[in-house]
């Protein structure tokens, strides 16, 4: 369904951005993205082993503006990059699960510095994954293999931490993605516990979204989370290959499964240049290509547009949340 209508909300598929590329125009196993000013998206590619790690700058109108970062353990390099966030000064922060550090860049890609060291003590990191800024420009870091959330200043001074290993309320098991809402509350994709948990800024557990499973409203290893201006919560349901939408009270609203029936312009150019691919596509059932495959991150812009990043399709699918949608006559 290109248009999904549920519980008074309307999600209308718009278009998609991106394609696979080991380098240059495209992404490779992208893990996260950040919506920057001037319609520029910064997409973080994980690559594989010693290839493909980078941040790609692309506009919402498909203009490839270059890339920065590379594989390695040196300054400004990555081994297992996982998440990217932007502060109010529009500088970028990237977590690296293998190097246990956060690296900072300006929007042009100039390396600014890095911080973080491996360990389990307060302020130390083990497999840092999701990143999100609070309203005061401090950075929440999902300290995934320590099963906790830690908050730092932008330059890496430890502020506080919450969460412990387990499946009880407020406990975490290999958490992945994170976001904050307009009130400053924190949402964590509690990956091994198949749920999203909402916390107050000081770490008090407030609410849970989702149950383990494959049914409507369930989650199977959720990866990312975002909240729109109405307080609706969007979760990339990673192992179920879908996005689950919940109301602010945790009630289930809708499922999005991916609708990219039209390839992105980059993809279309690739297809058009390969006559055999054109032929093959005309004979195959193309539906699997439209659908989400390993959705890893979801972001909301100021207009409540929804951006879903798919690791295995190397693509962003964009949906509009229509606020003034009028139903067509159903007897049409």
């Amino acid at each position, binding site marked *: 369904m290109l248009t999904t209508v549920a519980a008074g909300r309307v999600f209308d598929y718009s278009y998609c951005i991106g394609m696979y590329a080991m380098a240059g125009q495209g992404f490779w196993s992208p893990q996260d993205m950040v919506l920057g000013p001037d319609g520029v998206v910064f997409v973080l590619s994980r*690559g594989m082993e010693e290839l493909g790690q980078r941040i790609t700058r692309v506009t919402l109108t498909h203009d490839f503006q270059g890339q920065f970062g590379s594989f390695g353990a040196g300054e400004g390099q990555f081994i297992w990059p996982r998440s990217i966030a932007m502060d109010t000064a529009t500088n970028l922060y990237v977590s690296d699960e293998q190097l246990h550090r956060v690296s900072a860049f300006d929007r042009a890609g100039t390396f600014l510095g890095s911080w973080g060291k491996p360990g389990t003590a307060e302020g130390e990191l083990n497999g840092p994954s999701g990143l999100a800024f609070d309203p005061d420009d401090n950075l929440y870091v999902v300290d995934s293999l320590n099963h906790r959330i830690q908050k730092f200043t932008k330059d890496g001074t430890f502020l506080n931490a919450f969460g412990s290993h387990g499946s009880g309320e407020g406990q975490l098991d290999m958490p992945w993605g994170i976001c904050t809402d307009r009130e400053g509350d924190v949402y964590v994709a509690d990956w091994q516990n198949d749920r999203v948990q909402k916390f107050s800024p000081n770490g008090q557990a407030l609410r849970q979204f989702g149950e383990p499973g494959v049914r409507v409203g369930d989650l199977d290893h959720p990866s990312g989370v975002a909240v729109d201006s109405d307080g609706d919560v969007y979760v990339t349901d990673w192992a179920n290959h879908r996005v689950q939408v919940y109301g602010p009270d945790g009630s289930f609203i809708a499922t999005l499964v991916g609708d990219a029936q039209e390839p992105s312009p980059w993809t279309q150019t690739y297809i058009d240049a390969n006559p*055999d691919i054109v032929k093959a596509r005309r004979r195959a*059932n193309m539906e699997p290509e439209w659908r989400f495959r390993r959705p890893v991150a979801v972001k909301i812009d100021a207009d409540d547009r929804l951006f879903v990043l798919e690791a295995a399709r190397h*693509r962003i699918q964009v949906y509009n949340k229509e606020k003034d949608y009028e139903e067509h006559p159903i007897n049409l």
Partner: protein
Amino acid sequence: MASKDEIALMGHLMRRAGFGATYDELQRRANEGYEATVEDLLRPEAHPPVDENVLYRFFPGMEGALAPPTNQADWVYRMINTRRPLEEKVALFWHQLFATGNSKVDNPPELTQQIAMFREHGMGRFPDLLVELARNPAMIYWLDNNGNHRGAINENWGRELLELFSMGVGNYSEDDIKEASRAFTGWTIAPKIPRNPLGRFYWNFEYRPEDHDDGEKSFLGHTGNLDGDDIIQIVVRQPATARFLARHMYNFFVADEPQVPSWNITPPRDPEAIDALVQAYEESDFDIRAMLRTLLLSDFFKEARFERVKSPAELVVGTAILAGNYNQPRPGFPALAFECAYQGQELLNPPSVESWHTGSEWIDGGSLVRRVNFAAGLMGNTTLPGIRSIVDGIREREANSPAELVEGCLELVGPLDVSQTTMNELLAQAEEDGYLRWETEEDARESEQRVGVMLALIAASRDYQFA
């Protein structure tokens, strides 16, 4: 507490029915008993499979990966980290028997899917496995069954099914091949979304009735409107199939045999063992698990220690298990897969449908140097957790004299039997520096290094090349 002999026998079982195990695991299993361990290995479903959520979270590029080494790394990760070692070893057995290569398929994820199919069906009934194989897209493409049409047969799959996958050459006629091929017309692959630029999409089996030859066929004395399933049911009941399969199993799990093409003129190394496996096959309604049970509990298996040259995958994975530094997601698995290839076994890409030549043919000047360098490099690195635990074992058992050092190291890596020549060389090395001393930090550091050198020497020995 298990005796040294029981632990040594367990080491043998785990090298063959798995890829080796640490000394701690051998002790634990030996305490549980040999027969109980065999049953445990034969029931992989009692243990959780490799957690693919963890695998693909940390290696998002592995799932449906474009590159062959990435798919090979996916498999090596599973070989090292599986809690179902026999299931994984059996998958490698079928990969060697039903050799399908990326050199032609050019679609590594489909080969990964084929290995997953071996994992799922590899210990079930042989006819069920052959049906899965006949429907496997990578196999269909590898042996051209997608080009096998009603009225225009392609004999490739029909021929190899009989020659290399079930009966062996000399047990069927050319007409049987043609008739079998007719029966498999219409077994093909559904049109697939092409690769790139949105990642890989999987192939699916498709039966096209309009392309299937519905006419009467005669195959190995059976006449009728036979289809592919009927052919497989006839094939699995042939005495030649039972013997061919038994011999493959013996060669892979028990002791090196001559290469497959010579089997119709060279008798088996142990005819009674083959008879026992044939009997297990026939009495169990063609059950692979029953054959494996007979094999692993037999005296001929228990007595065949170090009678096989390790395949590169066995050498690489077994050494990595001992080293203990690959037991969670981390960079470096593709390098292990490359190592297998450098030593002569590029996983998912056997050299032909006849597969790799095994036994002493794994060894040549180049491959031996790779094997020695790789194994000695890991085993001599005392910073690795598995090697550290061997060092700690030597220290705890106070194996300080040169003879105790050699004996302790040989036990903790295998236990490994070595020739007198090797033993003399190891002892000569150990005696050069006298007793190990642990009193001061400097002593301990030096002794630790000496254990590492001894382990590297053992890994570089002729004896370490045998499983």
